[in-house]
């Protein structure tokens, strides 16, 4: 009897967890020819043009808000003492003169770094 209840509560908990982690489809608003999607912070995003080139408004997922991720910039670039191992996987980029290296693992977590390679503004991401 006890085992049954344990299994049931486990299944219920797993279910609740699964639902909260699911990518929610966007809340879509259509008004006067405009299409908007609303994210979880309550911000509305105009996707009228995107829809016109084939992006399905219902296909936008998560919508966790534009401040959900910390992005990296030039202040995060350094040539100080090595804090990387020789076998660490990096994304290297050069303009023939200047060179940068980005930890692949870091890009995966932060998603985007906005920096300048010499005079060229670049964005590194995963």
């Amino acid at each position, binding site marked *: 009897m006890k085992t049954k209840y344990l299994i049931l509560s486990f299944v219920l908990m797993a279910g609740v967890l699964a639902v909260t982690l699911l*990518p929610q489809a*966007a809340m879509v608003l259509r008004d006067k020819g405009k299409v908007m999607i609303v*994210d*979880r*912070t309550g911000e509305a*995003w*105009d*996707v*009228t*043009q*995107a829809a016109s080139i084939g*992006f399905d408004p219902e*296909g*936008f*997922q*998560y*919508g*966790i*808000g*534009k*401040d*959900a*991720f910390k*992005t*990296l910039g030039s202040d*995060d*670039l*350094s*040539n100080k003492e090595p*804090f*990387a*191992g*020789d*076998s*660490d*996987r*990096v*994304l*290297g*980029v*050069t303009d023939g003169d*200047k*060179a*940068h*290296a*980005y*930890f*692949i693992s870091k*890009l995966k977590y932060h*998603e*985007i*770094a*906005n920096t300048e390679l010499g005079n*060229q*503004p*670049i*964005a*590194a*991401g*995963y």
Partner: protein
Amino acid sequence: MDLAVVYSRELDGEALTLTPSGWTYKNTFVLYDKASGSLWYPVKKGLKSIQGRHFGKILPTLPSTDTKWGRWRMKHPDALLLR
């Protein structure tokens, strides 16, 4: 983005700042430039603006190398590393 990639973020003489919008589309991050209010989505050549002032424009991919730090700094001893 499914692979590590570098884009130029210069457009018509201005430098955009690309951040995640918080949205994904087909399991891919949709990027956002606050100053122009534009949304960007990866395509073959780079990032394409799918919404906003730069609608239809493309930020091209730049060549980059997926490698190991030891190998890269041997070629480029003055390389800056993102920490």
